[in-house]
């Protein structure tokens, strides 16, 4: 028997979600509020290993890596959120449209989905970001436009399945309009899918953002995004300064996992038929 917690499982799930959200909000706020002075060049404290004063050590210019990591994460979460929300919205719109607007719309949208899926989206992303001149705007638009297809496909399938359910047919014969059914019957079933999809998109988006930035096509070097930190740190890895890449990388992993956690736990809470396990 597992140790008896004072809280039941549903309450624990809620607590987990709250803790995860608090963690993410702290990171974001930390990035905004942390003292910029800490990351000014301080050549007297170059390359110091992690210590109490500099939890994550300092880099080759004497900048505090903890501050840089938090700011980088904060920026990445921001970019990731905007990108994932944008992508999920596109996926929802196209998925719903494909499944409800008739055969022709379905064919066209499915074709576009397949088209996007057939090209690795890192390539499309780089192209779009490059065309738009890189920077914050370029990368956000690029991320939004490239991450929706697989989620759109899932949503389309889900909508089609619900559309043929008996309760939807009954609703039609009670004189409900297509729009009413979409909002009242179909959407409640899609929301959990969308949430999970969104939570899975998020780490994807952050990692791609980091990758593109790492390659030098994303955010500009003076914006301390996590990708830039990692990319710069790579050069110093061979000289034994492990902390430069280790902590930012680990933190990125933790943030990504936290989003996964929130997604999974929300799903458990939202499904009325699963409220017993």
């Amino acid at each position: 028997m597992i140790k008896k917690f004072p809280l039941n499982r549903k309450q624990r799930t809620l607590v987990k979600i709250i803790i995860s959200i608090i963690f993410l909000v702290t990171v974001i706020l930390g990035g905004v509020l942390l003292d910029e002075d800490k990351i000014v060049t301080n050549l007297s404290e170059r390359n110091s290993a992690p210590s109490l004063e500099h939890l994550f050590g300092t880099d080759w210019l004497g900048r505090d890596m903890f501050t840089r990591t938090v700011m980088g994460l904060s920026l990445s979460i921001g970019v990731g959120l905007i990108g994932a929300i944008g992508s999920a919205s596109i996926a929802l719109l196209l998925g719903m449209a494909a499944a409800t607007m008739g055969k022709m719309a379905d064919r066209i949208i499915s074709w576009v989905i397949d088209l996007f899926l057939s090209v690795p989206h890192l390539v499309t992303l780089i192209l779009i970001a490059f065309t738009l001149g890189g920077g914050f705007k370029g990368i956000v638009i690029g991320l939004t436009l490239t991450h929706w297809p697989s989620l759109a496909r899932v949503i389309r399938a889900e909508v089609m399945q619900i559309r043929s359910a008996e309760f939807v047919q009954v609703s039609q014969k009670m004189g409900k309009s297509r729009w009413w059914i979409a909002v009242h019957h179909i959407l409640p079933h899609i929301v959990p899918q969308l949430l999970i999809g969104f939570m899975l998109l998020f780490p994807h988006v952050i990692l791609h953002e980091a990758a593109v930035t790492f390659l030098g096509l994303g955010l500009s070097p003076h914006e301390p995004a996590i990708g830039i930190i990692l990319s710069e740190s790579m050069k110093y890895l061979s000289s034994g300064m492990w902390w430069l890449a280790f902590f930012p990388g680990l933190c990125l992993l933790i943030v990504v996992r936290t989003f996964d956690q929130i997604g999974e736990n929300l799903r458990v809470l939202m499904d009325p038929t699963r409220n017993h396990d």
Partner: protein
Amino acid sequence: MQLEAKDIGFRYGDGPWLFQGVNITLEPGEIVGITGPSGRGKTTFCRILAGFESPIEGAVHMNGAPLQKNGYHPVQMVLQHPEKAINPRWKLHQILNEGYQPDQELLNLLGIEQEWLTRWPHELSGGELQRFCVARALGPNTRFLIADEMTTMLDANTQAQIWHAIMEIAKKREMGILVVTHESKLMQRLCHRVINFNEFD
């Protein structure tokens, strides 16, 4: 208010005809049973009458005019499995009030208890859910009711309760009912006349 199925034929794609040339007329207040072995399209025929499906041949008329595709359908159907006919993410009061607001008298007649209304569908049994499906189908504009194996999954007492309620309402509103069931004794108990679906082959 006569319901008339004229020369109905149905098949899937280019497959063999499931049935062809089915003619049935239902008068208001009349209770008619359909028998016949399973797999001959009785359910599909019911779905056509209720507007869930369009016939390949023939047409369904009410008072001599074809039925509208949109809007409240005057022929409502109650199916065998209430769990499928109910949105699992809706609470029962939402389900009950989807088409109209049933009055307390109807709820009492069907034995729907106030306390159930705040529950989720998976918390109630099949017999309890089926009462909601029946209440939902008995809107003020329902002229005909199709009961396709409606009480097949229910125990004898619940079956009798639901049918008594329906018969009372049908009598009051002059509503016609089409009954599909395998239970010949139930059929005899309820129906004014019985049609053998096999005769249409």
